């Protein structure tokens, strides 16, 4: 479902003397449907960079990143937008939404974007918010005013709202209490059971052990100084 082949990444800092910083080379990774692969490596090793390249948020310098039938490394913006709408979900560490939009709508939005009826989308949004223990009194409020943990849970509800065949999870259990952490792990297990291919970053080792089928240490993709 997700196939990363020989991917390299460099950052060129035009305003700092044109410094070229190679951060990744020869990255290879395959994730099958129903499989969860954890990216590991010390801070700065390139876990988030690799994940962002798969999402099309960072441009790959070379190589191919196939998700479904799209090569994210060379696709047109609108092909990537379609991929993100229908196929590839991403739960980032931060919730980025238009201020003032009610939580229920924030969670329902990914489903409305793929054409689900509003009634059905809101029903599913309620179910997820309930499971993630967001009190009903908050549903009509904008999540921009919520606590960090609440925002993270709204972000997760939004990320799992549409049944994506492929998902990227960046620290989905960070800043969560034990009960909510268990719920998130259940959501990941359910997604795997229905065949989603998942790539995750989990600093929480116990969580990683419970959901990940394999681990890939991204520091082996760190370019060596010649």
């Amino acid at each position, binding site marked *: 479902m997700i196939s990363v082949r020989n991917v390299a990444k460099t*950052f*060129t*800092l*035009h*305003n700092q003397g044109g410094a070229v910083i190679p951060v990744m080379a020869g990255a290879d990774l395959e994730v099958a449907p129903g499989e969860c692969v954890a990216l590991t490596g010390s801070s700065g090793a390139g876990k988030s960079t690799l994940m*962002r390249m798969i999402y*099309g*948020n*960072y*441009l790959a310098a070379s190589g191919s990143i196939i998700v479904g039938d799209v090569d994210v490394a060379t696709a047109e*913006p*609108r092909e*990537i*937008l*379609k991929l993100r*709408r229908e196929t590839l979900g991403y739960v980032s560490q931060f919730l*980025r*939404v*238009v*201020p*003032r*939009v009610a939580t229920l709508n924030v969670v329902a939005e990914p489903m*409305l*974007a*793929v*054409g689900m009826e509003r009634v059905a989308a809101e029903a599913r949004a309620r179910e997820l918010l309930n499971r993630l223990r967001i009190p009903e009194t908050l549903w009509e409020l904008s999540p921009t005013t919520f606590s960090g943990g609440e925002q993270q849970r709204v972000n997760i509800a939004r990320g799992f709202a549409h049944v994506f065949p492929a998902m990227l999870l960046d620290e989905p259990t960070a800043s969560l209490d034990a009960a909510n952490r268990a719920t998130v792990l259940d959501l990941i297990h359910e997604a795997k059971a229905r065949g989603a291919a998942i790539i995750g970053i989990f600093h929480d080792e116990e969580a990683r052990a419970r959901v990940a089928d394999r681990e890939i240490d991204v520091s082996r993709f760190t370019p060596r100084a010649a």
Partner: protein
Amino acid sequence: MSTPATPLLQVRDIRKTYGARIGCTDVNFDLYPGEVIGIVGESGSGKSTLLNCLAGHLAPDAGEILFNTRADGLKDTLKMSEPERRMLGRTDWAFVHQNARDGLRMGVSAGGNVGERLMAVGARHYGNIREQAIDWLDRVEIAEDRVDDRPGAFSGGMQQRLQIARNLVTGPRLVFMDEPTGGLDVSVQARLLDLLRGLVREMGLSAIIVTHDLAVVRLLADRLMVMKSGHVVEAGLTDQVLDDPQHGYTQLLVSSVLQV
């Protein structure tokens, strides 16, 4: 949602010069139905010149602007007759000015401002026009009891929302916006952004938004073009251009944003 195969707008090699100075040059892009494209750049980078060329307010020196018309398919709007282009401006196109006063008739009531667009496309039944005007004022969160007030009695944010209602009442397919949230209070900006996002999705609108506010484009635009000295120096997915900018100018622009 299916992805339509035909672009709504195809822009080819647009160039506009002011004497020896370049307004904008070598601009090429396609815009698909339902897509929002943002144009950012510093003052004087040519973004407003480009927008005005695209919307038919300025005549470019060279290039083609192909619009997928309802009746005849792709047509070069630069080769259209003046009445034909004006008709487009009243029906399928809309232009939201930075300064709401440029897009409103200040001597006419709020309801009249909205109703006028409807009359321009042939609506004649007063009751229906008023009903639709009130419906649109409601959609942009202007209370019904203000329908007979003139825009001069409105705050800046309300004027901007009224301008949007006036523009969208005829169900355009393409909206040009020049700094639509410029000069507005941030809380009003957020309401406006929410409103615009909802309208884009519900009506399947395509939009071209010129702004210098990177936070606005991140939330509204699917794609981004970065302009400098009349040239498009970088284009791509909005979040990719903002998070992994490739051009030196974009890097400077992104790193210059003040954090709150």
